[in-house]
């Protein structure tokens, strides 16, 4: 697990995503960010280069 994100770094992510958060909402999402990292870690496991994601581009299917 990476080091805890600093509030400064999290503020930069929030700004990059174009979000304007009140101080209360900032604190709420900052507190939730470790949960995002937990979820993110659970998606990573060793897999080969031939692995395919579940969604594929389907020419003609639109």
């Amino acid at each position, binding site marked *: 697990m990476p080091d805890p994100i600093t509030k400064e770094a999290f503020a930069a992510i*929030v700004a990059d995503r174009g979000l304007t958060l009140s101080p209360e909402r900032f604190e*709420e999402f900052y507190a939730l960010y470790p*949960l995002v990292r937990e979820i*993110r870690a659970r*998606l990573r496991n060793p897999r080969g280069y031939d692995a395919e994601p*579940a969604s594929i581009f389907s020419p003609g299917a*639109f």
Partner: protein
Amino acid sequence: MSDPTFLTIAEAAKLIKARKLSPVELAQACIAKTKRLDNVLCAYVELTEDIALAAARTAEAEIAAGGWKGPLHGIPIGLKDIYDTAGTRTTGHSRLLATRVPDEDATTVTKLRQAGSVITGKLGTFEFAIGGPSFDILTPPARNPWNPDHTTGGSSSGSGAAVAAGLVLGAMGTDTGGSIRGPSALCGLAGIKPTYGLLSRKGILPLSQSLDHAGPMCWTSEDCALMMQALAGHDPGDPASARVPIPDYAAEIGKPVQGLRIGVIRHFHETDNPATPEVLAALEEAIRVLGGLGCEVVDVTLPPLADFAAVGVTIMASEAFAIHEKTLQASPELYGEFGRDRITMGAFFTAADYVAAGYKRRELAAKVAEVMKTVDVLMTVGSPFPAQPIDAVPKYLFFRTPSLTMPFNVTGLPALCVAMGFSSTGLPLSMQLVGKAFAEPVLFGLGDAYEKATPWKSRRPAMALAA
């Protein structure tokens, strides 16, 4: 006749076909009951009385002329307010879309109209099928007819309340992580999330395109089968629409279920997201009933529930944020708090997270497919607890606790919730039956057999009984 609003679709259809029940009188009874109860239940965003009565009169005339179209002809059906309806507002229960009037019906709505159903109006949802129960959106949230202090679950919340109370005989919901099955479980209904791609999503406001499913919510499994018959089929307007033969969805209704092999995913509801003792006891009793019907019940093991939840949450939040990015940046104040903040969570996942979730999704689907080779049906609970008080639903429940319904959005397999009794406080409990891809008839047959072997379907919410 006793209260016609509590007839099942199957029962009403027989009477309508035989011209012993008037579609106009049935629609009038549903509308009168809505006017009596909906100030408390808040099931509707908009009741379209004139449109409903016109459709009922048309149905009555067609049937009188010998033109009975099938089991949905003259049947009152409500639509979750994310189904587009030509000429009638479709709001997503959001102030953002308060005045949006589509030009076209969703494909599924067209199919319902072609089958002769009487569309009664637009039913409440969580905002954009994710934000609720909320009091700070377009209209108040739907309440549970079994106890109006409690939630219906969501997001097809008005659909759950309306069917349980007999405001309609069937309703359309959508399910991205459990939004058909949750309200069906908490309101005592039968509700199916069909196989991904079986029902068109065209003309339905999306939450997360690769997890979204349309589906019916009814009082019984048989009624779900009847609605599926009218709804299923390839739609070139939906890029994910499946090209598969459409079976007779009622083919297994009333048939013996002896020999069906049922795999209970015990770790899902006992350790991964433990259900309450009352729910666990009801599930054990349901297993005993199914065993008594001749089913062979075994335990099976799937990957941890949290793995499915991680995939589902990452995909749902990412796709939802992509849809709402601009409006969340420009006018977040137009959303209710729950919808705004739940969708905003998607801002914090990366592109690599989204693709990793896609890899993991395929891996999980393959593992579940391996287990499905050994059984006909998987079984777990529909909800780990009965309906919560409406003001006590945590904002981030879905992110913090792995959902028992999300695995089958992730795998796309069909999943049917069936009522399995009541809590000590009189709230419905539910089981979830999961089938192989496109094997919905097996689920309907099993759900029907269980419903007929148990007394639960004879009970309706006290507040909805005739005054």
